[in-house]
């Protein structure tokens, strides 16, 4: 099997697993995605991971679409193919599950399992989000300016109605001046 096909299969397999485990809207998969893409396969660096995640937050639609960028970087010879494979892996398996479960859903309608599963998984998902904070911070700038911007964005997000892309753009402006 040649290298292109091998990488392609690795990409598909990696993101398909993340897709199936993407409970809570996919918020919890960031640490595992980092481990696969940065540590295991070394497709991208820590810094790239943080920046791709940022692009994912910036563009409309699901954040996890940044998987495409990891696929893009993983296949320098055929970046578009890599991006497509990553996106198919990321979105198709969970979507198939959605379609299949929906067919049986009406039968479960009165079942208490829906609340049990979503409330039961919540603490683990939130813990995974905190682990994501740690993961992302491995690839972001350090120093007083960086910490101040992070803190400011956190406070503004919680206390005002400013939109996420606006806050990211403002942080970018600070970065041009102080984080070059």
């Amino acid at each position, binding site marked *: 099997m040649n290298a292109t096909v091998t990488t392609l299969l690795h990409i598909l397999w990696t993101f398909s697993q993340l897709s199936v*485990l993407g*409970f*809570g*809207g996919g918020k*919890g998969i960031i*640490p595992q995605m980092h*481990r696969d893409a940065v540590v295991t396969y070394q497709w991208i660096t820590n810094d790239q991971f*943080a*920046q791709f*995640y*940022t*692009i*994912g937050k910036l*563009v409309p*639609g*699901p954040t996890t*679409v*940044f998987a*495409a*960028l990891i696929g*893009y970087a993983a296949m320098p010879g055929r970046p578009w193919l890599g991006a497509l494979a990553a*996106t198919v892996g990321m*979105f198709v398996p*969970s*979507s198939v*599950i*959605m379609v299949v*479960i929906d067919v049986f859903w009406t039968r479960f309608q009165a079942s208490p399992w829906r*609340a049990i599963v*979503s409330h*039961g*998984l*919540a*603490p*683990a998902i*939130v*813990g*995974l*989000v*905190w*682990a*994501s*904070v*740690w993961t992302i911070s491995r690839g*972001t700038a350090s120093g007083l300016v*960086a910490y101040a*911007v*992070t803190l400011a*964005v*956190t*406070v503004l*997000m*919680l206390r005002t109605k400013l939109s996420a892309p606006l806050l*990211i753009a*403002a942080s*970018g402006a*600070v*970065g*041009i001046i102080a984080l*070059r």
Partner: protein
Amino acid sequence: MDNELFMDGLELSQVLPGPNILNLAIYCGQRVRGIPGAIAAFLGASVPPFVIVLIAGALYFKYASNPYVHGALRGCAVGALGLTVGNALELSWDERDDWVKILLLILTAVAVAYFKMPLLLTLVMFGGIGVAREYRKSRKAKASS
């Protein structure tokens, strides 16, 4: 589609893996036109973000080495980190009524960030404990009613 059906789909979208918006779009497509509707909804909700992120990515790989773009990207990443911290705080606040949940949350974060626990094991173990507790709670509620 009526309001009740929509809210039901929203709940399902949140319980199952995958982005909520994408799942909800698929649900709506399926209710309206069956499997072809679901496929159309899938494409409609995933292709535009894919194209946009690819354009952003192509620009990234072309210009990331420019010092100004590099600075902007580093700034943006710090901002995205702040958003994630805010998100984590908000979600943690929702769990505040139950100290066992807070403990589970902290243990999960430490196990994943520090001990590198794989995602599947994390969900089975800490997710499993959470689900088992909710199950017991619902059994008790049923028994007492």
